[in-house]
């Protein structure tokens, strides 16, 4: 509506489009250029890189195929997998609760308590810009190898990610409904609970589901570092050259991830 009322004319449109094309061109040039420059710097030959791919696949195929003996260890693998799923879900869930709490302060109708909004934004980008591996390493020094380390790493990462996503949704979706309830004379908290949160919640839930999927993959990686869960299982099989067991572990992870993606797709359809 805005563009209609302000009367975006043909000239403006053309200029906008041209600017956008220029931007795309330069982005492509910069990204492509830096890629080439970097690979030259690192003495990385593109051709060799590409030819190595089929070779590694055949190696994978020969070594990672499970056989009858492999199946005996399956219960052990599954129990570790279950623990990892639990870790992934709980970290995403608790991060979601914290994120919803923090982002509520940023709703348009909430009073500006001493720059709380800016603090929340800062927390989000701080958490978001430290990679998961770095979190795990940092936490390893403090908490040593145990489940808490893995949980905290996933929790902090999820919190940063969800905060950023929620802040954006809040900004885009909540101002109109907030205004509509403001004119009835309702106060900030009431508007938040009755108008803003019901409006943004379906999208929030969608991101939380995504976070859970993502955390299952990441929990594996974190497990390798922190020596817990399915990641640890995979790591120890791999290092002891039991590639068949490592293979079945990966297979289990893939099955779970795919199953979970399907479940959340179903859930999304229900809430949408």
């Amino acid at each position, binding site marked *: 509506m805005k563009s209609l009322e302000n009367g975006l004319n043909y000239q403006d449109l053309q200029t906008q489009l041209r600017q956008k094309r220029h931007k795309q061109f330069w982005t492509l040039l910069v990204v492509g250029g830096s890629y080439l420059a970097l690979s030259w710097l690192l003495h990385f030959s593109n051709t060799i890189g590409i030819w190595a791919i089929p070779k590694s696949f055949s190696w994978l195929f020969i070594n990672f195929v499970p056989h009858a003996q492999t199946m005996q260890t399956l219960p052990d693998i599954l129990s570790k997998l279950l623990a990892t799923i639990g870790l992934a879900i709980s970290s995403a869930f608790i991060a979601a609760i914290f994120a919803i709490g923090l982002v509520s302060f940023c709703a348009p109708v909430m009073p500006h308590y001493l720059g709380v909004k800016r603090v929340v934004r800062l927390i989000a980008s701080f958490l978001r810009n430290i990679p998961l591996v770095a979190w795990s390493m940092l936490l390893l020094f403090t908490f040593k190898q145990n489940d808490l380390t893995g949980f905290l790493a996933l929790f902090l990462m999820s919190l940063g990610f969800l905060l950023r996503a929620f802040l954006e949704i809040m900004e885009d979706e909540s101002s109109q409904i907030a205004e*509509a309830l403001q004119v*009835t004379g*309702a106060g900030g*908290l*009431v508007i938040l*609970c009755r108008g803003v949160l019901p409006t943004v*919640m379906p999208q929030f839930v969608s991101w939380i589901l995504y976070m859970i999927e993502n955390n299952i993959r990441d929990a594996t990686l974190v497990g390798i570092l922190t020596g817990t869960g399915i990641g640890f299982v995979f790591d120890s099989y791999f290092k002891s050259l039991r590639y068949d067991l490592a293979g079945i572990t990966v297979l289990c992870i893939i099955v779970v991830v795919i199953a979970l993606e399907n479940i959340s797709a179903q859930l999304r359809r229900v809430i949408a």
Partner: protein
Amino acid sequence: MLEIKHLNKTYKAGRPALKDINVSIGKGQFVVILGPSGAGKTTLLRSINQLITSDSGEIDFEDQNLRVLNKQQLRQKRQRIGMIFQNYNLVERLTVIENVLHGRLGQKNLWQGMFGVFSQTEKQEALRLLQEVDLQGFELKNCSDLSGGQKQRVGIARALMQHPQIILCDEPVASLDPASSVMVLDLLKKLTVEKGITCIVNLHQVDLALDYADQIIGIKAGAVQINEPKSQVDKAMLQALYDKES
């Protein structure tokens, strides 16, 4: 019942959006604000219920200047001024009846408001209002399943739930097809006649304005150029309002 005196508003220095606005609006009037895009119609309307903070002047409603009220007093007064929006501004995921009940949130205490606790009387009133706007049978539908015209009528029912003296309408039919537009404007007109509610409506369709208005306010470049009962407004005045030259 509503007196606007010497109202000024400037967003960007040197380009005032409202210049010394003086208008007086009577009870039960259907007032249409006309003017070219960017004239200041939205700014004027939203200054009335303080969604926009104006720079100087007075907005007198029920013996009080809305511009100088504290937060608590303003919330009290806002309950008496409903508003409907071009994009309806409903909670789409909630049901029609829940959205209508939202009109009462200003009158609730904190806990009732937060948890959406409404009395039987309030619920019965909401149902009655839905009949009034011809939406019986839609009470438990999600608002996302309604057409634009139906959503706007939910918006009107929500505003009525406030027991307002005034309803402010910023381009209420700009997103609607002609048939729905007529239905919505008929409904607003009926409210002015039957309930004595004052409707202040921003429109960009001159023909609709002439069909419905009791009073026409023409704004151009932030200043009032027409302020007359409809019978006093002629074609030349309207042409001058939209003329880019004069």
